[in-house]
């Protein structure tokens, strides 16, 4: 149960990118999990070659991932968004990106599980009779910090507020003197940068293989939809709900059913949303 709560904090970190890019910008970036895994592998390589702490790598690589995100968005914009053909082809584009990233990692690093080592992994602290592994606690705390940071970014900074505006009213944005495309580029970049750190957290919690990204597709989108598209606070709440639900499921039915939980929550969340073509 406690593990579920901690997992929730981590899941929030992982889902922030989707919450931002899909929830606010309405871009169906299904490649997000692949970027997270890319972050995991970056952390692995740095850890293995230089002994760098995973989370530190995650932080260091955020600018790199930001640029990567900006480039990907520009490509997407030029090829699809500008021509008004986002739907079918944009989706296929992102799937292609997901695929290419995953397979490239397979080619380079094979399909063995990779993990990182850090001083705190394997240790735990005792809080009120419950043993909490640092392996889970640290990512959860970092995840919470990320969530708070993103929330502050969106509500307090100029660019953050511009992103909120772009999700609601492009005209208002123009009147603010900002270029919607530039704002979206920044937001997309931030979303991918978040993946860098999230990936580092992921590999801290558990070993990864290139196909691990697919486990997270359902989770990320379930959390984003359940939390209310684009609400950062909602993302956190939904993430915790999912984390707890998964651990309960895992305790009673075994770990392999945890993915069914996120899928089930995704379907339920979709069913409960207002229906209709114009509904959002």
């Amino acid at each position, binding site marked *: 149960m406690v593990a579920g709560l901690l997992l929730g904090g981590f899941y929030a970190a992982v889902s922030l990118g989707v919450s931002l890019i899909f929830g606010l910008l309405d871009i169906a970036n299904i490649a997000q999990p692949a970027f997270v895994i890319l972050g995991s592998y970056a952390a692995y390589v740095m850890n293995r070659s230089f002994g760098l702490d995973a989370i530190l790598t995650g932080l260091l690589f955020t600018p790199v991932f930001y640029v990567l995100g900006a480039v990907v968005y520009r490509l997407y914009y030029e090829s699809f968004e500008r021509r008004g053909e986002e739907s079918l082809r944009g989706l*296929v584009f992102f*799937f*292609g990106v997901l695929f290419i990233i995953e*397979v490239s990692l397979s080619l380079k690093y094979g399909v063995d599980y990779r993990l990182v080592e850090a001083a705190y992994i394997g240790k735990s602290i005792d809080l009120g009779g419950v043993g909490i592994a640092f392996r889970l606690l640290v990512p959860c705390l970092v995840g919470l910090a990320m969530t708070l940071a993103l929330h502050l970014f969106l509500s307090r900074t100029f660019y953050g507020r511009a992103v909120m505006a772009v999700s609601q009213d492009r005209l208002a944005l123009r009147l603010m003197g900002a270029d919607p495309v530039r704002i979206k580029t920044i937001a997309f970049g931030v979303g991918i940068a978040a993946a860098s750190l999230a990936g580092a957290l992921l590999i801290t919690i558990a070993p990864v293989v290139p196909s691990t990204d697919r486990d997270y597709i359902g989770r990320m989108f379930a959390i984003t939809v359940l939390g209310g598209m684009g609400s950062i606070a909602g993302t956190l709440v939904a993430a915790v709900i999912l984390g707890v639900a998964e651990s309960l499921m895992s305790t009673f039915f075994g770990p392999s059913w945890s993915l069914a939980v996120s899928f089930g929550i995704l379907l339920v969340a979709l069913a409960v949303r207002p229906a209709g073509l114009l*509904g959002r």
Partner: protein
Amino acid sequence: MARSTRTLLVGLAVVGAGILLAALRVNPYVYFAGYVILQYVVIATAWNILGGYAGYVNFGTPAFFALGAYTAVFLIQSTRAPLPVLILAGGLVSGLLGLGIGYLTLRLRGVFFSIATLALSIVLQTMIINWEYVGGSRGLSVIRPSGPPFGSYVTFLFAVMVLLSVVAVTVARFIERSWVGRGLAALRDNEEAAECMGVPTLRLKLFATTVSGVLLGVAGAPFPYYVTFVEPTSAFNLDYAVNALAMPMIGGTTSWVGPVIGAVLLGTAQQLATVTISSEMNLFIVGVVLVAFVVLAPEGIVGLVRRVRGR
């Protein structure tokens, strides 16, 4: 009417050619590879009925394919049912899956359907892994029935797949040219306008999803007999997901011709390549080609040909 009769004759001719090829008992590799390519003709055609005609992207092709395969495994284990029954059952079950997923998500924007299908494969794979009766994660050996026509069971399966691909393409062509196809095209072009012009969009979408699911299940049903050892990793292989997208996208999504061209071209290329490059490299190349086509030539080969001919 003349046109329908002609189509029927062409279809029968192709099936006849396939049977002839099977009877000739050429190099067995032809049948092994031919089966895979024809399987992809069915898969690509099935995908395109929903993806190309209606504009709804299914990323979960492995789920539907594997469900057809595992339905067959279940029936083989429990009743030793003959191949035609396996095929019908596989189609039925996958069709129901399509209907179910469609019913849950098609009232919403298309992207939610796609996301649901993306998550679907993993979930279904997890469930199959936990189901010992069909082999679980270890897999299951399946014994082919004895005394197959043409001497070898693989050759027989090849002939069966010729028939199935003709059926699939005929179904796709029929839909494309009917009022259903026109309605699907309208909803693909602009769903809101289509609905307001009297097109029952939800019903047509459910129809397309179900037919697509049926054909994918049909493609998967003979799979256990083809591989003889069925395990989740191969049945749910990512190959199916990316090829089901790439083949129609490369060939062209607006007509039945595109998936066939894409499947034959890409399928043959992959069969030739498996001996020279690793399967991951193969997937990587397919991924790159897919992205290249979707960015640069979204109308596929059919579209390019049309443009060259000056339409």
